[in-house]
């Protein structure tokens, strides 16, 4: 990974095992960082390809997360919805160094900025 700068986000143990945290960005929707049962860490846009549910709030298992809104299962490694559903959510490069979770600042500043959060309520 030479030539690439990485931004520290948090320590791995600041993410619950089989859980997630939300990372705010200057522009665009949050990024969700997930930690699975084997302490692997993944990062996806916090938005289900189905109806925009916040994936960070889902149940994490294996290398997947179940969306909290309608239970679509999204792969943490590739952002792809598991069959029979189809769809894909933006993936972010993510790595762990000395227990520190790192994201790519260029990706944070440039990827999926156009994605909008779902709307609800009377002002919709």
């Amino acid at each position, binding site marked *: 990974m030479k030539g690439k*700068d*990485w*931004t*520290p*986000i*948090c320590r791995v143990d*600041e993410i*619950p*095992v*089989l*859980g997630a*945290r*939300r*990372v*705010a*960005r200057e522009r665009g929707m*949050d990024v969700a*960082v997930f930690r*699975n*049962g*084997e302490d692997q860490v993944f990062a996806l846009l916090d938005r289900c*390809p189905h*109806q*925009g*549910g*916040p994936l960070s*709030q*889902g*149940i*994490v*298992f*294996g290398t*997947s997360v*179940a969306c*909290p*809104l309608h*239970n679509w*299962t999204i792969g943490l490694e590739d952002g792809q919805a598991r069959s*029979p*559903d*189809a*769809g*894909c959510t933006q993936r972010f490069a993510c790595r762990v*160094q000395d227990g*520190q979770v*790192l*994201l790519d*600042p260029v990706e*944070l500043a440039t990827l999926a900025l156009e994605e909008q*959060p*779902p*709307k*609800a*309520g*009377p*002002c919709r």
Partner: protein
Amino acid sequence: MKKMKLVMVGNGMAGMRTIEELLKIRPELYDIAVFGAEPHPNYNRILLSPVLAGEQTLDEIVLNSWDWYEQNHIRLHAGRKVVQIDRVRRIVRAGDGTEEEYDRLLLCTGSNPFLLPVPGKDLQGVIAYRDIADTHAMIEAARKYRTAVVIGGGLLGLEAANGLMKRGMDVSVVHVMPWLMERQLDDAAGRLLQKSLEERGLKFLLGAHTQELVGGDDGRVKAIRFKDGSQIDADLVVMAVGIRPSTELAEKAGIHCQRGIVVHDTMQTVTDARIYSVGECAAHRGIAYGLVAPLFEQAKVAANHLAQFGIGRYSGSLTSTKLKVTGIDLFSAGDFMGGEGTEEIVMSDPHASVYKKLVIRDDRLVGACLYGDTVDGSWYFKLLREGRRIADIRDKLMFGESNLGDAGHQGQDKAACMGDGDEVCGCNGVTKGTICKAIKEKGLFTLDEVRRHTKASASCGSCTGLVEQILMSTAGGDYSAAPKKKALCGCTEHSHQEVRDAIRNNRLLTIADTMRLLEWRTPNGCASCRPALNYYLISTWPKEAKDDPQSRAINERSHANIQKDGSYSVIPRMWGGETTASELRRIADVVDKYRIPTVKLTGGQRIDLLGVKKEDLPQVWQDLGLPSGHAYAKALRTVKTCVGSEWCRFGTQDSTQMGKDLERALWRMYAPHKVKLAVSGCPRNCAESGIKDVGVIGVDSGWEIHVGGNGGIKTEAGQFLCKVKTRQEVLEYSGAFLQLYREEGWYLERTVHYLRRVGLAYVKTKIVDDSAGRKALWERLQFALDGEPDPWFEHDKAALDSRQFTRLHAEEGQTA
């Protein structure tokens, strides 16, 4: 190698189905471009009627989303109408100049509504009923105007009329024939249909010839005049008098058209073998079909040939009809009018609005017309298509398929007696065998899953009931046939019951131990089994097994109810539905302070604060100073009460106090599913105790207890458990029943389903007959609940991970 180019003109159901079928078998063969005149992705045109009637939304009827096209690398030119096909250079050109080259061309231009050539047909407020724009125009008109006239008493006309009426308009249907839907119904059934539509508020003018549409000064239609000189008012006129295949484009390109674009059995046009046509625009053996089932059959054949497999021929379809007006059942197929050389078997019960006619020729069923009871429609349709001789079953034919065979088949429903090859979903050509196979192999147990996997009941939805029956008989009560049980989820072969037993018998205390002992196939389960395991552990071993928040669904993990936009709703507990001025003031202050957009009363007599940001939740709870309502949990929700004897002049018991006592005794109680209670102070039952998991009704001499009621998907009246004398007994019996359910129920099984599984008699022996057992149950529940934390205030004790309420920030300017 360069891919061949496939261009489709017409982004509708038949064409897109062809593309889908093609992608299924040869996804890599073509570079695909699609032109659609409407500015929408492909949607389910059949469901425009439910949209018009306000029963569905436009979003719900989209079949292929914009994303779908992108993911399948299909260039969609939506809102671009193709105006020219250059067959020599093999190019199609849209009105805006967009061009696509093709190696294969698929013409799916569909049909155009036929407009009566009467004076005034171009006035404002005169529309056809064909697409989303028409539907919008009607919905808009229903907002502004009062009177609507629908010309045409056929399928489409009646659906339009019904929808406009549901939108509040005063609707008359004008029909030139002597009875409604004359192409699908005989006169007797047509009149029954008319009667029941009249009862709903529609008006009819039959045998009426439209002469002219009369306009007002504003250029908008204001009346419709008939040949006999009479006229009626109309602010909106919908013409639904038929459709014509849309062949203009094909004709301009020199493709032979006669009542449609003429195609062979391979769906290739007779003129140009590179050009295919399916759908309402295609004329196959002289027939252009207007119903969805034949079009999907055509799509399959066309896709097969486009994929260069070269097998499969379309040889025409027999069609059947159903009307999509909620609450009206009618079915017809084949030659239902009868006539010379035919015999008819007729059953008519005008009082019950049931009418059935079967038409027989040469010992074969050739037509059927059913009104009011259409359960056997698909069976008759099958007999009709098979052309089977019916002499041996003729005496029972009228009474339906379930009356064939031995008399002893009690409880056997329609789904059970269908053969595997029998068609269930006519729209998508799905057989019972296909559905059963998918249910078994993929472990499906909801209607939605079956829809997603098989497409059965995914188009018009009229076979939904049948699919559900198949689901029930396949996935559910298969006990007698083989002792094959249903696995908890795909991670294990063990059933809910086996998992519960293993946890109890082996004194298992953690999810990890349970998975290890039962040889789970996955490292840490899935979103189905982990919440179930967590519940089984903490309900079996209270105060020993530790709650695992990461195995709880989000609502129970964050103690609020997630909404569609990712915000949360907060519902504080109001004991027995009573509140005070100071509580209301605090609520109002919280609403102001945290700018909560919606405040709504719930059905359970509480106040719902909707749209709270996750970051604000702990502070909102703190400021409210009210206990958690658990309105998000598989737990005790509310105890709904009526005013009772404290105030009500009819009240015989103090139901409010009883409700408060029950709620204080039972709150914080997790259960296999949500639990709702109600207490009414007299048999007038204002608290709706009859549809609650436990419903208590005060009578003069004590309290009646009903259990297993449910007001959800399917309304279920509770069953009478017993009558008790004292308030203490109400607590003990109700609590004991709920503890029995907590100990024996399967995760996500409501009390009604638990009761159905174990039987009311069993519950009575445990709760009513065995007083020592009842007391023990009640004590176990009190032990389990004693000292349970309020998750809104005792965060540590409730194992609430407060990190979830804060967002992380990338450390600006810092790199590692």
